[in-house]
């Protein structure tokens, strides 16, 4: 991979260099994949949606200006919108998903099936708790706590002022503490940054 920053790769992609966009995908596919899993709790869905996030980023390129060196906050913001509008996105991207279908000899979805199922079950438990928060707060818990974005990066991802991120996340943490441990003690993991 090149040493270009994401911003430079994005500029090159806009100039018509498809390989630069391919490199952006290679850099961030894993983070986007894990973010999607942590939002939907299903590895197969996360896998399908990963490329869709990049396609959607390209589709909206005229509205997008990459201010930071890293494209990850932007990609996670796009992923958040796709998950929020799943029904619409599914319809729009159905053809793309069909074109992307992978030959079975190159990839077996049954690898590590036991571990994957256990992870999905665990993720569903966590998402069950998270689901008791307003959606806007859920976004921030996953971005800032589980994906370890800074407040500034999360603000970029969700197009919010940094102050709103801070106050909303603080509110979310307070609520989660109440949900996880009525005594008010922070529970490990969900709240620790």
């Amino acid at each position, binding site marked *: 991979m090149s040493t270009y920053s994401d911003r430079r790769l994005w500029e090159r992609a806009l100039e018509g260099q498809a390989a630069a966009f391919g490199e952006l995908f290679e850099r961030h*596919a894993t983070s986007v994949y894990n973010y999607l899993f942590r939002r939907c709790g299903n590895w197969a869905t996360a896998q399908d949606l990963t490329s869709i996030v990049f396609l959607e980023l*390209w589709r909206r390129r005229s509205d997008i200006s990459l201010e930071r060196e890293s494209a990850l906050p932007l990609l996670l913001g796009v992923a958040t919108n796709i998950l929020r509008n799943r029904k619409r996105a599914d319809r729009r991207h159905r053809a793309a998903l069909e074109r992307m279908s*992978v030959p079975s000899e190159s990839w077996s979805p049954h690898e590590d099936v036991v571990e994957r199922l256990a992870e999905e079950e665990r993720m569903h438990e966590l998402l069950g*708790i998270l689901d008791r928060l307003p959606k806007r707060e859920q976004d921030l818990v996953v971005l800032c706590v589980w994906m370890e974005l800074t407040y500034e990066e999360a603000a970029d991802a969700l197009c919010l002022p940094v102050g709103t991120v801070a106050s909303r996340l603080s509110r979310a943490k307070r609520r989660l503490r109440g949900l996880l441990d009525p005594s008010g003690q922070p529970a*490990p993991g969900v709240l620790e940054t």
Partner: protein
Amino acid sequence: MHDHQPPEQRAFPAALLHQQKEYLMSEITRDRQTRSRRSRSLVLRIGTVGALAVIALAIVGLSGVFGGDGPMTIGPMTIDKALAAVTPAQGEVLHIRITGVDSDASTFVQENWSYSDEPWKYRGMTETSSGGLQEVAIEASGLHQVYDARTNSILEMQDKTLANLTEPKVPGESYEEMIRELLTSGLAQEDGQEQVNGRDAVRIVEKRPAEDGERSENVYLVDAETGQPIEWRIMNEGENRTLRFDIYEKLPGTPENLGFLDLRVAYPSATVYTDPAAFEQALATAPAE
């Protein structure tokens, strides 16, 4: 649950990484080629209509037509503008009144105000052709109001479930949502201009591929300058519905404008009930009109 950590991150499957990267690169190349063909086609069309006009525009620096200030826009710019116009903005009260006319000539009016900032607020009403009026106001704080026009009374309750919603569950059809769906479907295309009630409107049509098998046609007309909705003609399996946007305005979220979202403010003379049973009783015992 033994702890509250999500599972460890997994690498994106290597076999898929290469294959999907290739796919994305080919999509981007194809997309750029398509756009390039479209631009060439536009240039050719302009050429056949009036090459001299193009030359004249070039001499004056291509101002006006391609500069973006005038009402004429090209393809995706209008779609984007139309989408922006129906996308809620922070800190604004969106006020919409729609008159709908169905193919059987029945009409209805739908009017609503919405505020999408925290805490969100929504007020909506639907008037049917039989004269019924239903109106509700809800907000994230849990306040839930219902207004009955016949008895001029309001039922006001606290609904804790509202606090869990990040946006209101809108009673009836959300046409703004449906329009956003149309504009982001990838099937909407600009199809010329026409005048609607003296306004310059851009026609946006839904070009649905024939293989979808649905006989439907949507013509959505937006203000050529602002992209705001003017009219939506929906034709589906012989059933037509025309929606006219009589009012479409974005108001600043001042206390005065937020007052529109409170039924007590809207109907100051109404009797307010907090007990649902008493409200029902008032409705049941009111003389029929």
